[in-house]
């Protein structure tokens, strides 16, 4: 990776980083803070950019770590997480059409994903939403490709199982 420009290579990753932070912290404001911290941290390490294999993976790794830190701090604040995860939080779905399309069931799936252990959830997010390869996910999470596959398998099975259970009810 040569000649990485902050404005054209790193700043455009903001939404991807934001989605990841959002999945982990499940709070919009906190996620935005995390992305901001991530960006500044990456800027501070700009002398390392040239040596990186993938700046994107680097950014995502930092973002995930900061999100986890944030999550821990939030937990310490004895703040009920469920207050933050407002399942009917439409602050982002300002588009009325989208809001209409979203039905109870899809909200359920979302809820299920959010209830997964963080590692499974992040693997699933990176794979299914961001379309990352097993290898990229392994780099970002610093685990083996095999572990990534197992995590994704478990995550999908868990969602499917829970979903089927809910549908039967």
């Amino acid at each position: 990776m040569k000649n990485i420009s902050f404005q054209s290579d790193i700043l455009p990753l903001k939404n991807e980083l934001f989605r990841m932070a959002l999945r982990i912290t499940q709070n919009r404001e906190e996620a935005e803070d995390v992305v901001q911290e991530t960006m500044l941290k990456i800027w501070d390490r700009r002398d390392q950019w040239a040596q990186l294999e993938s700046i994107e993976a680097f950014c995502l790794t930092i973002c995930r770590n900061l999100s986890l830190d944030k999550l821990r701090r939030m937990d310490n604040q004895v703040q009920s997480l469920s207050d933050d995860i407002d399942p009917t939080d439409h602050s982002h779905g300002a588009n009325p059409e989208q809001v209409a399309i979203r039905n109870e069931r899809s909200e359920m799936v979302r809820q299920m994903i959010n209830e997964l252990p963080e590692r499974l959830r992040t693997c699933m997010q990176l794979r299914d939403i961001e379309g990352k390869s097993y290898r990229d996910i392994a780099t970002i999470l610093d685990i083996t490709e095999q572990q990534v596959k197992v995590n994704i398998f478990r995550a999908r099975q868990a969602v499917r199982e829970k979903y089927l259970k809910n549908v039967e009810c």
Partner: protein
Amino acid sequence: MRNEIFFDFPVTFLFNKRQPYRDNKKDMDYKYIEQLMERYWNAETSLEEESILRTFFSQKDIPAEMEHLRPLFVDEAVGETLDDDFDARILQAIGAEIATPHSDHSSENVVKAREVSLTQRLMPLFKAAAVVAIILTLGGALQAPWDSTWNTPDDYAAIQQADTMNVIPVQAENFSTTTSDSIGVMQTDQPKN
């Protein structure tokens, strides 16, 4: 654009699958999607197949019985992005950092630039001094022969006299009294030999 991609793939799908073509093309698409979903649950799908699913679920019209699966592939947060204010804030934070001495790279550059500009600023002065020195030197050099020349014929005669007196006797013998200058001497001298 995504929809176009999606509508392209059933064409290849027709060749791959044994199922006979039915009037309701959509049904078939959904069959294929269902198959993909089955493999998806078992984590057997490739990235390409998952991107087909992603494309499929990002369409507006999907069957109601599949609607609930949408959040698996399409983050509703897609519409939820960080705005330009965020960019501005980040860039400002970074710009502010550049201005502070914290960033040693840029401060080094400033010092370096100042050094260069100092030399460059003095350069015209050096040039002027050099020009003056050259003029003085040349002027002095020109002045010397000018001083020893004559302004009136009498002066010239006096100089000539002095020159002739300084000539060593052997050479002086060859001088005729009418010789006006040394070139003349050479010219009158040569035919003799």
